């Protein structure tokens, strides 16, 4: 089998981004959830909140370790895999990546150690403050990354001149049209990742033994968070679809599998896109449904995939990924609300749910994280064949590495990621079954 270096590079980059996208959302949101637990413990003096904090801070620490580890390959791949990228966008991306690294450095060196190992060494107020700073610091780091990510979709504030982007308006670079929706989507995905993780793990525990007070408190917080986040996902999803229709019409057309420019198309709910014959087989459509994407409202016309002379995202992958992501969002939404309504008047005790429902909830343990992975795929597939939307293609920035070494690296990365994911799962389930004992680092009195 012969795979081109470009395909191998795409697979490798998508794989590394997916690993990060799996762990980053839960890390991001768990810090805020932990801050909430800590705050409740201080206000209510209920030891249950402290116990909940103690269990979930372990899961947070594991997820953080893997998030930090997972960000290193991505950073280096930006340089070694896409070697030509910075030469084009260095003036924009350099400071953004630099600030992201700096943000991680500051919150990790100043506050994370206190949060994880310093609980007995500092006052409760200082400890709570350090959790807050970790939560803020993580958001700051992610903010810079999302700025870069959204700017690549909607490159405003900089001019492409002589093969290089020159910034003329930094606020326009940072607050580019796609930023707001992407930040919103990221925040909600994170909330869902944490909510479904806590709900799922607690349901898994409830299947095995009666829950204690702390576990019920954590479940309650997670159900409320999840029910809120799934609702907010609807407007944010619609909003980002409209930005896509406006700024990435080719991606929107690929999502809709809209092959030929013409009259107002009907919206394809499901089907099997056939890129060779340029049509969708076995399709299920809704008449006039394309207004869902808002393309007509903004541009006044419908542009099919035929207008882009091949410079559009691969239809099959993005078509299916979007539909799976929407399906997953619907399943999460129904689950969160059904559970919320069932437990609301019964003290948010998961044991009132049937065993089948508990099994269902525990199966969705990683649904939020998986939707983060799917969003990353939609983003990366949707960028193809470009690295910077509309100007720089992936082909022109591909590094000099040969297929052989790319394939070897891909195999090694796969083994590494499988090892780390298996370790995470094993340690998570061990903790869920037998509880956690505090760890300490030698040389750090705590």
């Amino acid at each position: 089998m012969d795979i081109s270096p470009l395909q191998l590079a795409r697979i490798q980059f998508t794989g590394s981004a997916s690993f990060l996208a799996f762990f980053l959302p839960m890390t991001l949101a768990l810090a805020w959830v932990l801050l909430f637990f800590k705050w409740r413990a201080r206000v209510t003096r209920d030891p249950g909140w402290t116990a909940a904090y103690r269990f979930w801070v372990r899961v947070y620490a594991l997820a953080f370790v893997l998030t930090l580890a997972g960000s290193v390959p991505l950073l280096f791949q930006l340089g070694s895999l896409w070697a030509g990228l910075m030469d084009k966008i260095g003036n924009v991306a350099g400071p953004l990546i630099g600030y992201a690294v700096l943000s991680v450095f500051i919150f990790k060196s100043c506050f994370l150690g206190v949060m994880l190992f310093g609980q007995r060494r500092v006052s409760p107020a200082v400890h709570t403050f350090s959790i807050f700073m970790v939560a803020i610091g993580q958001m700051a780091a992610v903010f810079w990354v999302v700025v870069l990510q959204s700017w690549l979709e909607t490159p405003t504030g900089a001019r492409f001149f002589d093969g290089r982007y020159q910034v003329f308006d930094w606020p326009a670079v940072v607050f580019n049209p796609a930023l707001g929706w992407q930040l919103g989507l990221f925040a909600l995905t994170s909330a869902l990742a944490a909510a479904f993780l806590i709900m799922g793990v607690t349901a898994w525990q409830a299947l095995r033994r009666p829950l204690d007070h702390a576990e019920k408190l954590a479940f309650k917080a997670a159900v409320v968070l999840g029910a809120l986040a799934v609702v907010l996902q609807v407007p944010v999803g619609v909003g980002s679809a409209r930005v896509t229709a406006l700024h990435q019409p080719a991606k929107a057309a690929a999502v809709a599998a809209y092959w030929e420019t013409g009259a107002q198309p009907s919206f394809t709910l499901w089907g099997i896109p056939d890129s060779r014959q340029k049509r969708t087989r076995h399709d299920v459509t809704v008449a006039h449904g394309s207004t869902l994407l808002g393309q007509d409202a903004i541009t006044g016309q419908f542009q099919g995939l035929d207008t882009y002379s091949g410079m559009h995202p691969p239809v099959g992958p993005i078509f299916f990924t979007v539909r799976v992501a929407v399906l997953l969002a619907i399943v999460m939404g129904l689950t969160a609300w059904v559970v919320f309504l069932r437990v609301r008047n019964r003290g948010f005790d998961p044991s009132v749910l049937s065993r089948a429902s508990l099994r269902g909830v525990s199966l969705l343990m990683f649904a939020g994280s998986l939707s983060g992975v799917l969003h990353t795929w939609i983003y990366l597939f949707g960028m193809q064949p470009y690295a910077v939307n509309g100007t720089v293609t992936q082909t022109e920035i591909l590094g000099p590495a040969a297929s052989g070494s790319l394939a070897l690296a891909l195999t090694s990365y796969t083994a590494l990621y499988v090892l780390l994911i298996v370790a995470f799962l094993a340690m998570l389930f061990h903790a869920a079954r037998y509880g956690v004992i505090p760890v300490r680092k030698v040389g750090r009195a705590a």
Partner: protein
Amino acid sequence: MIATLAASMGLNPGDAAFWMPLAFMGMLFLLVLAGTVFDGFDIGVGILLAWAPAEERGRMMNLLSPWRDANEFWLLLGVGLFVAAFPFGWGAVLGQLYGPLTAMVIGTVLRSACFELRIRARTEHKSWWLWGFWAGSVLTAFGQGMALGRIVTGYQTVAGYGWFAVFVGFCAVATYVLLGSSWVIMRVRGALQQRAANWGRHAVRWTAAGMIAIAVTLGLANAGIFYKWSNLAHIGVAISTWVLLLGCFVAIEMILTRIVAGRARSLRAAPFLLCICLLALMVGALAFSLFPYLILDDLTLWDAAANTDVLRLVLVGVGVAVPVMLVFNLLAYRSVFSDEVLRN
């Protein structure tokens, strides 16, 4: 020299376009050096786990514990500064180093994850993570050495250069072993100290071989660098570098021999300090050789630097980072030179 260099580019030494890239290169140099020394002993101790008796391995991991957070960040800070200040050289350098960097990155991820997971793992699983940390350390050292081997041969890809890179990779493992064992010598007493001195003695020869091979290759492969080191204006620098280099090797060997024999206990910090001198000499000499190029004879650091207004933004970030870094590192490393203290 600075004035001539500025004039050759038609710039005033006071121009931001001239001094800012230079200042960032200075910082990058310091980050590389700090990373080599501090992440280096960490890597070295990791590699040595394979030779340590099973009951000492946990103790060696615990020795590293207080500095892990500080040690593992030098690489990220260095890459962050590199991409922010010299984006137009970043891809060119990293793209050429794809293979070695992949080895280094996988090693770094393994080290970072395994160390933390080991702390939180069940007792019966701890040794798996310890071996993961070992494998990560070997890969990181080897990858860094391979990268160095590729850099000094100007990224040539003919087969012979590949083997040279493999040789330098092996010597880099030895160098980190030397650094790690001399750090252990300084930190502990008893049987482990003597063992470490023995490891160091094996490693010092390969360290010397590697460093001399790099120096010779660099000079022979590039006429400009050969001239730089051999012309009369710099002959003093060249001679004193070589004398210092060889002096350090001889001194390390002599002290290690005495420590193995159970003598010279009062000198137990000396090998580590001498190793730092060696690494500083090597990184300094490399920088001197390559300057003002980022990629030899092709891309100067001014070519690679971002626009001046972008560099100003980076400078703001550095202004925030440096105080944090100083305070954090002073707190983290204040006892790096001291004896092993078992707290709690």
